């Protein structure tokens, strides 16, 4: 599997895929996409990178343990739901803020934060399974 072409291209391909996954994640509220799909794309990116360049380099690249990323995703997902408590509303009532940045109005919301949580959970969990399965081949 580790042909020189694949090994050379894989880092760029993976980086592109991760970038694309973030794009998919952020557009999800209005167009096809969202945290789950984005997470799957990013997880495949990690898997491909791992197949090409070895699991050790993937682990170096993502700095945190993938399961830690998943746990963090779950944490901010739950946190996004708690925000509504401060307004005296039920758990997970969505909150919206409209921020003006360089003259462009950017809508921010708790569903977005929640979606990012979903994304991280999927990347972390699927990624860690894939990496753990690949690891044996490396050693």
């Amino acid at each position, binding site marked *: 599997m580790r042909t020189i072409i694949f090994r050379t291209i894989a880092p760029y391909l993976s980086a592109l895929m991760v970038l694309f996954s973030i794009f998919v994640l952020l557009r999800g*509220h209005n167009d096809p996409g969202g945290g789950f799909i984005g997470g*799957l794309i990013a997880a*495949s990116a990690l898997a491909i990178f791992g197949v090409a360049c070895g699991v050790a380099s993937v682990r170096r690249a993502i700095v945190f343990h993938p399961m830690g990323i998943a746990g963090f995703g779950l944490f901010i*997902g739950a946190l996004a739901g708690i925000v509504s408590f401060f307004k005296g509303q039920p758990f*997970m009532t969505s909150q919206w803020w409209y921020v003006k940045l360089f003259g462009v109005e950017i809508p921010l919301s708790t569903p977005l934060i929640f979606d990012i949580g*979903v994304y991280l959970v999927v990347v972390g969990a699927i990624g*860690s399974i894939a990496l753990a399965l690949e*690891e*044996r081949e490396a050693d």
Partner: protein
Amino acid sequence: MTPAMIDDTTLYAVLAPFAAAAVAPFLTRWFKHNAAWPLAIVPALIFLHFTGFVEPVSQGESFVASKAWAPSYGVNFSVYVDGLSTLFALLISGIGTFIILYAGGYLKGHPQQGRFFSFLFMFMGAMLGLVLGNNLISLFIFWELTSVTSFLLIGFDHLRAASRRAALQALVVTGGGGLALLAGFILIIAATGEIEMSVLLGSPDIIKDTGLYLPIFLLVLGGAFTKSAQFPFHFWLPNAMEAPTPVSAYLHSATMVKAGVYMLMRMQPLLGGTPEWTTVLPIFGGLTLLVGTILAVRQTDLKLMLAYTTVASLGLLVMLTGTSHEKALEGAVLYLLAHSLFKGALFMVAGTIDHEAGTRDITKLGGLRSAMPITFAAACLAALSMAGLPPFIGFIAKEVLYYGTSGWLEFWGGPITVTAVVGNALMLVIAAAVAIKPFLGPKVGTPKHAHEGPVLLFAGPVVLSVLGLGLALIAHTTGELFVGPTLSSLMGEPKSVELHLWPTKINAPLILSLVTIGLGIVLFTQIDRLRAIIASVLEVIGWGPDKGFDQFVAGTVSLSSRVTRVLQNGKMQTYMVLIFLFTGLAVLLPGYLTNSFPAMPKMPEYRFYEWGILLIAVLGLIAVLVAKTRLTAIVSLGIQGFAVALIFMMFGAPDLSFTQFMVETLSVVILALVMTRLNLSPSDHRPLSAALATGLVAAAVGLGLSLTLLAITQQPFDSRLSDFFTEFSRSIAHGRNIVNVILVDFRGIDTLGEITVVVLAGLCVLALIRVRTKPDKTAEASEQDALKAQQAEAR
């Protein structure tokens, strides 16, 4: 009369023992066995609280108090105080006071005494909650709590196998019966719409009118008979004598086993009086009475003798309750009172003898009267009451119950009277054996040098046995304050009772009493021969419910291990085949049974590229089937998946299609990785028959799912949900992508749950992989050790 609302004090009185249970271990650590004194204050106060009800209750009043527990289900923590519950509450708290004191003396220096006190108090609270329970559901909770706490108490000496077995047996029998009772209660609630006992009692015919009388009757009976050790469930009670004696004295004579009798008495206005009631109860009660007394005569162990007479007494009570006849019920109430007093006292006496002399076997005891004069006196008083001799309350009870049975009941009167006479005569034999044998006669050498126990030990027997005399001496007041109100509860209408200590004239009951006493004395002189006869008869019979219980348990265990061996054989293949087999059956069978398979729809006009995608999918499937190696098969399956994703895309589900693409890619990658790790051979070498069988299961699942989908799509489309989401996803959740809006906004909590599952699943998979990758040296070593040990054992 409708019950009056009272304040919450009575509710707290029910809960007070639980509070005492919480502090008991600490008190015991500080004061050692003397903690019994402060602890006994709790039941004493409860007793005082309930004496306050005696006067108004005897005037015909009743009370309820209630606190919401789970109001949306109509479950309240509520109490109902009337004659019956007052009598029981007084017995539980009054005898409980002395039991606590007695436990202080009996388990003096025991390292687990604090724990013991805790259990005892929890049991007391459960029992109080039971007899006062008004709400059927909370009543049931207390009912099962008595089973659980008695399990703890019987198994207190948990290092002994016999204790554990007895505890388990009691829990299985009474807990199982409790489930029947719960079913009965649920039926009552469903049929009548009422959940409070006081309301039900307000209209006595409410259950008989529903048409569900028989199932309710049988289910309630199941609970009551197991709890009160009626034949053939009598076997657990004598085994429960494995418990320390204070427990036996409390649970198995004075309170717990009476819970079943209480339930029958409580239900008597609602369920009683019918042909079923007046047939089943007397038969089983009478049988229990005879079996209990006969088995009691055979025993030589003091506690076991008393235990079997408890079984017998419960039988007598059930028999009398089953007559639904006023005089017989009056006899039952009196006997209940008498029995609680003398049995509590005699159990404590038996425990004291065991404690001080070191044995409970009456053949090894004798001449203790000078060494233990106070205990001897108490034993005599209690035994006289048990034997039914004047001037004791047992005598009055016997008179009244004979009065009730003889000549008043047309058909059953004869057999019931004969049963009662024989039972009471044998009871007299036991009473004499228990009270006379250990104390009179020449002094026998005992394992311990016998002497009088401390005040903690003899306070209870003395007070209870003197009460048995005292209550008889003030018979008129006893009848007015205790028996009358209780009888009113049983009859469902106000009744007054007039008791006399001495018989006013010579009548049938008096003659029956004399017959009983005469018969009892004759039998007592022949007790050794009697014992031998019973023993040989029992030997011939051999099998009994007690043995049956063991066989039942062993059978259940071997059955479950056999089932486990078949279903959980550790082979992934078996699991998967079973899962898919049952999935297939689940989707196919309903259509087959109801003959409602959907019609095949007409083939729509496909465009050429649609045909193309379909072709790719089918080709992918064929490739899976003909693939030479596993890797090819996995990749081919991916092709099929991609084709499906394309179909999703074409028919307007881009999100779904997108996800499908990713999932297919990842599953191909992960499956390939898993395969390399499992060290499977590259191709599949199953015999053709196995492959065909698996294929058949797969085809069945596929066919079933397709048919289900077809059936669903042929239903008219219900667009309410999609209309809602289309309408509001923009205005409420500010998003155009409805799928995503549903996932993260409308149904966000679902998604939160799902991602939690994903994280956990990830952790589990990770753990599984880790176990495989790093074979633990120490684990391997210990496995080898275990293997060696096994081999050694086999040799």
